[in-house]
């Protein structure tokens, strides 16, 4: 791992968390769809990071979000779940031996792979997030509805962002 990738990721962390906390914290459609675009940072972490480091990064990211959202622990649990889904999905679909892509971006992996990857990770993250936040089952159907719409909204924004910075490598 060279220093350029580390710098890019640190920059991405600050940028996405800044956007999330300043802008997207105040945004929602009919109180149903609330975007959590900061998960893009966790999605785009390089392939070669060891698992423990991945979990620690997810933990710190979740802790930072929790501090700003006043929801101690909820974002931590959601980010850690996302990391578990990410590791499992990559283990199943990507052969690490003859593989030289550094990061799972849309440009590197193709639209189909990236959209399934993002959809699975985001829905796991949002399920944990919304149900831990509500913390009761009497509002089950309404929470599930909010979770579904928020997942679609986040997924849409993330794929949009990926297309804006789309750079397919010349092969």
């Amino acid at each position, binding site marked *: 791992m060279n220093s350029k990738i580390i710098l890019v990721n640190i920059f991405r962390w600050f940028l996405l968390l800044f956007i999330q906390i*300043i802008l997207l*914290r*105040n*945004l*929602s459609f*009919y*109180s*149903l769809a*609330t975007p959590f675009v900061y998960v893009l940072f966790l999605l785009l972490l390089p392939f070669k990071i060891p*698992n*423990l480091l991945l*979990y620690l990064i*997810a*933990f710190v990211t*979740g*802790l930072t979000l*929790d*501090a*700003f*959202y*006043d*929801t*101690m*622990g*909820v974002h*931590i*649990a*959601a980010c*850690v*779940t996302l*990391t*578990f889904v990410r*590791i*499992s999905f990559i*283990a199943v679909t990507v052969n690490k031996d003859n593989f030289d892509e550094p990061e799972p971006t849309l440009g590197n992996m193709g639209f189909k792979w990236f959209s399934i990857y993002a959809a699975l990770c985001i829905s796991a993250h949002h399920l944990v997030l*919304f149900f*831990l*936040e*509500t*913390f*009761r089952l*009497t*509002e089950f159907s*309404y*929470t599930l509805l*909010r979770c579904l719409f928020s997942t679609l909204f986040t997924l849409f924004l993330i794929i949009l962002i990926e297309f804006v910075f789309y750079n397919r490598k010349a092969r």
Partner: protein
Amino acid sequence: MRNLWIFINRYNAFFFFIIFFIIGLYLTVSNNSYQRSVAVNSTNEVVGNAYTNLNVLKKYMNLGDVNDSLASENAKLKTEVLALKKIDSAKNVVVKDSLNNSQYTYLAARVIKNSITLRNNIITINRGKADGLASGMAVISPGKGVVGYIRDVSDHLATISSLLHKDTKVSVTLKKNNALGTLVWGTKNADFRKAYIKDVPNHFKIALKDTVVTSGFSSFPPGIPVGRVSNTGIATGDNFLTIEIELFNDFSTLQYVYVIKDKLAEEQKSLESKLPNEQ
């Protein structure tokens, strides 16, 4: 032993997940309980300062609206003062308060962080322990209804569980027929302009546009306007009515709030703690 180690190492992602998820879950649950020990939230120095600085821009943009609301409140207070003076001159006043001074004192505070998009919304204000705030005090907005309860206090900042929070419940009553109910938010609809009154006995006739005020049984003083009935026909399946109301308070433009200090709160608490537990 060696095989166990190989097994754990092979599925390390899963075991790390279990460990970190349990940490997150533990923090969530311990934060939900009454005694919160973890202080990583917006009363924290760093986070609080960040929000204070970021709020400066928003504050200037809403200055016109804030001015208007303050002016109208001033006008209202002036008329009230005049009315009170008239009563005084008749020299035949019945003062409801048992103390010479009033039971409630108000303290103005500026909102430095607010949210309306979550299930559990928290507001942060720029007053804290140094100004005499304590957890559990009631907070209202200038002339337009309830805001919530103080949650945590640090030296110069405090967080409020906004009415838009699952743990916030306010005892309210309908102005016309004194029907008593509990104000909650978000159980059916997370619209920040709507809230629900639960547990109203179902022999009351509730009309649309009836005004809802606080009952005085929570930490709020009685008679603070909360909202207006907007829907009465909500089927719940129990023996009580659930009423949808339209809140007077617009949480999306909240700029200043009043924290209410209740002088008799301690006395009431210690008196009521002597009762046998009836739950």
